[in-house]
């Protein structure tokens, strides 16, 4: 296997005597998508910040490949409303077209919807031609139709451009299919591996409850329809929906 873009080894991190992460290791390879799932308070965002170098671990090491360029999309950007920013400034046309946000080019960032904002932030991250994308809840505030589109886009970035992706999500439905490796986190790594293997793991079932876990069957996005601009979708994926 190639040298990982980024490798976290035996990370421990505590704040005010409270252990947030204990003995966490993971590595992201080029062209591969690693998704961290876990309940609220599991330390997912802290893990991303440690990977980005925004926080320093109490023990353990974070190794980044030489000259690694990271594109980061934070969980939610609370933009200062008095700062006038055009979308144009955030991402050039080509990058915006790629994330399906070309039509908002002339708008002010402050006037974007949650989903549009996520796309623009993704375009901004892509402009840096990153080797690694760090995405903290990349589909927050995006409707169901848009979520699948965004995950498709992220998958395409990994497959076609060889970008490594470190993604955080609590919404397991859509994530599982688009990901190569899942790390199930609850302050420590409960289990990790291929999505198919993780979803049957007892620790995973204990964490999310077997009933919930059963409903989180691997979802494969079907490319047999277009998501229209008005948000209409022909098919709703219910709890018993098992796509081949």
């Amino acid at each position, binding site marked *: 296997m190639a040298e990982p873009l980024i490798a976290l080894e035996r990370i421990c991190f505590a704040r005010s005597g409270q252990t947030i992460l204990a003995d966490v290791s993971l590595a992201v390879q080029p062209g591969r998508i690693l998704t961290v799932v876990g309940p609220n308070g599991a330390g997912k965002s802290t893990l991303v910040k440690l990977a980005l170098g925004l926080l320093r671990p109490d023990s353990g090491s974070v190794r980044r490949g030489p000259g690694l360029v990271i594109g980061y999309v*934070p969980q939610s950007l609370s933009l200062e409303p*008095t700062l006038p920013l055009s979308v144009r400034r955030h991402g050039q046309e080509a990058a915006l077209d790629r994330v399906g946000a070309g039509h908002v080019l002339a708008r*002010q960032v402050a006037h974007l919807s949650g989903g549009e904002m996520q796309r623009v932030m993704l375009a901004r991250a892509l402009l840096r031609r990153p080797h690694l994308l760090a995405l903290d809840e990349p589909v927050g505030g995006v409707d169901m139709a848009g979520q699948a589109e965004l995950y498709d886009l992220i998958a395409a970035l990994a497959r076609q451009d060889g970008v490594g992706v470190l993604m955080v999500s609590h919404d397991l439905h859509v994530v599982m299919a688009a990901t190569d490796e899942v790390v199930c986190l609850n302050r420590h790594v409960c289990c990790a591996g291929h999505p198919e293997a993780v979803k049957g793991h007892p620790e995973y079932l204990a964490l999310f409850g077997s009933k919930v876990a059963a409903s989180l069957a691997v979802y494969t996005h079907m490319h047999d329809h277009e998501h229209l601009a008005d948000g209409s979708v022909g098919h709703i994926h219910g709890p018993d929906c098992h796509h081949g």
Partner: protein
Amino acid sequence: MVRSATFMDRIATMDEFLARALAGGIPLALVAGPFGCFVVWRRMAYFGDTLAHAALLGVVLGALLNVDFGIGIAVTSLAVALLLAFGQRRGPLASDTILGILSHGALAVGLVLLALMHDARINLMGWLLGDILALDWSDVGVLWAGGAVLLALLASQWRPLVAVVVDEDLAAVEGHNVQRARLVLMLLVALVVAGAMKVVGVLLVTALLVIPAATARRFARTPEQMAALAALLGALAVALGLAGSWRFDTPSGPSVVVAALLLFGAAQVVGRR
């Protein structure tokens, strides 16, 4: 007020006073506009007030140690900026609490020291409200030269500073030194406030920073537009305020702020969003 020959001289040379006031007020406004944008974006208005209050202590210390007022003000302003940066990083207290302690603590110490200095020749009202008409040509030169240096420094740090306003984490990931940008901004704003003290005074310094920037927000589509527009609006407020002060015999500092306020009000009526 001593009505003497010097007062008559002032009347006779009012044109020159006005020209000098304008020549000193314009560069101040041109600098205060762009820095005021950051004060608005970063919500530093109380920081500006604190600097101004501490600057009065600087004036008193300057008189006590027999050094130039400007140096005393600059030193106390920088000390406040550094103490705030230190307090934010170390202690559990919120920024506005630290500012409340620094602001009113410095003001009170300044006033007590002033009362203890029996032979001090400090015009308290002048420092509280500013006295732009007391500027001499060397002050004007300092304002232009200092303003040019401050704007050049701001321009050189523009990208990291705007990135920090957008999002500190994002700025850090994109390779900007966030801690340095924050400190640089605080120190530069401290120097702007020090420069503005003599012109608009302790009570009104923040107005010169905040009001033109807030007025510019309605018309700007980019951060650069907002900064440039704030500078022009500030300069216009200085010109209008001084004209009004001359015409209606009102104090210069408050007149400039009233002019800025009128421009702000007009912008609310005609401005687009």
